[in-house]
């Protein structure tokens, strides 16, 4: 997805739109130069531009799929890191686990943004999006699983009773050896 951004992303400074198909000269502020007919040019280039467009669409969808699969590598990486961290609670394992939880969440939040450059009428982004979401959910699940193995999820009874104050007793008794 980094590559896609580089080419077509928001980073560009200026652009010339070669595919202006409008025929009405009134749509422009500046009148066309004399001897220039818009229609003939359009007609001449239409086949070429369609071809171009198809190629671009293809390229876009290909890129979208690539972007969608990117979290998989992340997943593997995360898995390795988690295995490294072990199952005892300490600074390192907690850090890794929380980053494993945070990354999918932030990626899911920005799912629209990630696929924005590949938005096209002809490109079906649903598939890549679903894959992207699924992979990130997988990452999230991995993080939660890790959290559980660390014992940081309140899934046991002990997590809910550990600060229960002792029950009051109805009866009260005192005494001892006579003074």
């Amino acid at each position, binding site marked *: 997805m980094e590559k896609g951004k580089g080419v077509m992303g928001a980073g560009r400074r200026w652009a010339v739109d070669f595919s202006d198909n409008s025929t009405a000269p009134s749509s422009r502020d500046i009148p066309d130069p004399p001897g220039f007919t818009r229609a003939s040019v359009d007609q001449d280039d239409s086949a070429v531009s369609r071809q171009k467009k198809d190629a671009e669409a293809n390229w876009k969808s290909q890129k979208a799929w690539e972007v969608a699969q990117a979290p998989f590598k992340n997943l593997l990486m995360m898995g390795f890191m988690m295995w490294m961290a072990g199952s005892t609670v300490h600074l390192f394992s907690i850090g890794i686990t929380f980053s494993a939880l945070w990354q999918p969440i932030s990626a899911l939040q920005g799912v629209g943004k990630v696929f924005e450059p590949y938005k096209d009428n002809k490109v079906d982004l649903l598939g890549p999006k679903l894959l992207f979401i699924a992979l990130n959910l997988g990452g999230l699940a991995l993080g939660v699983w890790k959290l559980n193995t660390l*014992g940081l999820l309140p899934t046991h009874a002990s997590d809910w009773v550990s600060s229960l*104050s002792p029950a009051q007793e109805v009866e009260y008794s005192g005494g001892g050896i006579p003074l």
Partner: protein
Amino acid sequence: MAIRSFLILFILFFFSSLNPILSLYEDQVGLVDWHQQYLGKVKQAVFHTHKTGRKRVVVSTEENVVASLDLRQGEIFWRHVLGSNDVIDGIDIALGKCHYPFIRRKYFESMESSRWADGVGIFSSGSKALKIITNLKIEKDNIVIIFSNGRLNAVSCIDGEVLWEKDFEGESLKVQQVIQPPGSNLIYVVGFVSSSLFEMYQINALNGELLKHESAAFSGGFLGEVSPVFSETVVALDSTGLILLTISFQNGKISFHQTPISNLVKDSFGPAKIITSSVTGIFAIKMNAVTIVIRVKDESKLEVVEKTNHETSISDALSISEGQQAFALVQHASHEIHLRVKLAHNWDDNLLKESVKMDQHRGLVHKVYINNYIRTDKSYGFRALIVMEDHSLLLLQQGEIVWSREDGLASIIDVTTSELPVERDGVSVAKVEHNLFEWLKGHMLKLKGTLMLASPQDVAAIQSMRLKNSEKSKMTRDHNGFRKLLIVLTRAGKLFALHTGDGHIVWSYLLQSLQKSKVCQHPIGLNLYKWQVPHHHAMDENPSVLVIGKCGPSSDAPGALSFVDTYTGKELSSLSLVHSVAQVIPLPYTDSTEQCLHLLIDADKHAHLYPKTPEAISTFEREFSNIYWYSVEDDNGIIKGHALRGKCTGEVADEVCFDTRELWSIVFPSESEKIIAIVTRKLNEVVHTQAKVIADQEVMYKYISRNLLFVATVALKGSVEIGSVTPEESWLVAYLIDTVTGRILHRVTHHGSQGPVHAVFSENWVVYHYFNLKAHRYEMSVIEIYDQSRADNKDVWKLVLGKHNLTSPISLYSRPDVITKSQSYFFTHSVKAIAVTSTTKGITSKQLLIGTIGDQVLALDKRFLDPRRTVNPTQAEKEEGIIPLTDSLPIIPQSYVTHALRVEGLRGIITVPAKLESTTLVFAHGVDLFFTQLAPSRTYDSLTDDFNYALLLITIVALLAAIFVTWTLSERKELQENWR
């Protein structure tokens, strides 16, 4: 894998370096702890004579202490604290070859031994010593003649060898006096056989030869003691106490001379009592409150020289020059005491007459000792050491109190604490540190110290500044709750308030209700309770304590109550009760003025409610059916449970008096079990949680009950000293008893074990210490009790939604299903007291505080006394903090709370929670007092005193500066990039 294990190792190392270090650094001693040394009530004092050039006095006390005090300051020069079985009967200084005081003390019965060490000679034998004679000489050796236990011993000063001995025990003689006429080698031993036969023995002091033995009968009989008036004359009272007998045994002939007291004083005041004194020709008698000083003229003629209503004390004779004896007479008159020093043969003139203003809270003069010194103009000056009613010791010289010692604090009976007043108007910085300049200077020094620029002088200055921090002895409440008042009740019936910051006495008050009076002949102070603890009205009401005492040692002696304001030390009111006090039960209810309700049980098993207000009664009647009490009759081996029944009927009908009925009783077989220890949980202990999470996320529910009683019984044969029974005939049984229902929840027998048992009960566990005869070692056992009926609460959703009944009030009549876990460990020391740390919320882990036989306090982590310790704990158990099983408990030298100090004669350890959860205040008392703060899991909720604030500040400033600089740099760089 290698990386992972490396990582784990690294992390383990990192965490192990954070483990609690409980020891102190050398420069931390005295920052939060203080230690005070006392002696106890002085029984006898002997001055070093000026010939020896030492300005000291040697004293022996009722706390079995022998000490030498500096006469200029009253500081302890040396001190020996003997055991509670080693009662000191008398001391004297023998001059010549041995300059040491002689101490007579009970040693092993009839075993003759003498030891010379550390300036103390010890002689064995049993009972009260009557006399020590020290000024005899045989050739170059000085001999000391000691009378004790019906036996006269002559001991050499060189090596302590017994030169001769004479036994009077076999002759059924009750020896009254041993008299040595000055300048002769004769000793007279006088005494009574039966009640009417007077006997006299004359003995050669050098070889123990019996020179004469005479006896004479007197039909009237004898009463009490005899007082020697001349070297061959004594004075006694007849059996009615109305006739004075002058008994003379000159030249071996015994003659009686009777003088009725009514001949001497016109109005008789009933039977008299002789006050013995060693002054030649003078003695005193006391009739009720009247003291009469009588001079003996010409062997038999008696003459009253003084009759007074004031309390009078007479010192022993002090020979000041050849044939001249001086003695002191101290009389007490309201705010003053009058000291007179007279010559024995010249009553009319005073060598010295002084009046000294005396604090009322010291009570009456009990004893006086005098000493002389030679002034610069070659005349005699006198100094008097006086022992007051509150057991304090004062030195008077030239009409002034030179120094005073509050030695009553050596015999503390009970301790409670009180909060200090709330700070009203903010005390300004200048007020705390005297002035701003000082304050700035102090901080500059501290900064120098942190930046390691301080010179050795500066370091010393910083250290003394830390120790004298005026913050810690301020008289207001602090945020962390470290500053409190320790209210202590001493055996003399005096209340002291000690400041926890530095241990100074804030106020002291001699309780009138615990003083001898006509209605109360032998008052005894018993206990201290918190009476009023204002929380809501903390600004305008003072807390107060309740002092409970009784008249006389018998169980039906009437009680006495006193209410004392803890801020001012004034008695608010006092009550002389008509009923006795057998038990005091502080109830967990308060009235609208925040007075705590107390239930006093008398010897007839009636319950009396205090305070006697209608409001208290209505509160009490609401909870009436839920209040129970139990009594432990350790002589009969019976524990009885009682419930309240209704208002008293019969002659003691009273609004606040309630009848009780017996509910249950546990009778221990008297031939096999004897109760030797009972322990309950501390009333004010706070438990944070009822659940204990063990390995693998399992939960165990603690059985937490205020109504549990730990009882230890031993076999009758095993209740004697260690070493006198075989393991087969001795056993120890530990019980856990529910005091409401009388149900025995747990019972365990330790075969081959015996007492003494010391125990401590906290939360759901009890730890007790006893002797194992089979292993020949001391052992400590732990019993933890868990509630099995709650163990089914495992449904997480019910717990999440709060649909459980774990916190709902329970009745003890619902049948509990408990399991116990126990374990025993060897422990090296024998123990004097055990306590446990307590914190405000009960979250911090606990430490046991063990008063060892060496009079130190050892902190032992409760984790060492975990019944779940195994030889090879699993990983999960290790994570839980379970230590691998060992057969004995470790004693880590750094964990002595008292570090290098000793709390001589340690009797009790009290822990009080501070407001800061991590910290607990510890007060240990015996002959000495010791106070410190403890943090069993280190101070995790506050920065330590030596935290470097300056460094933190500098770091923050440096970081901020760095951020600012890098930000501007990056801005500039970005701008340049853009222009490129």
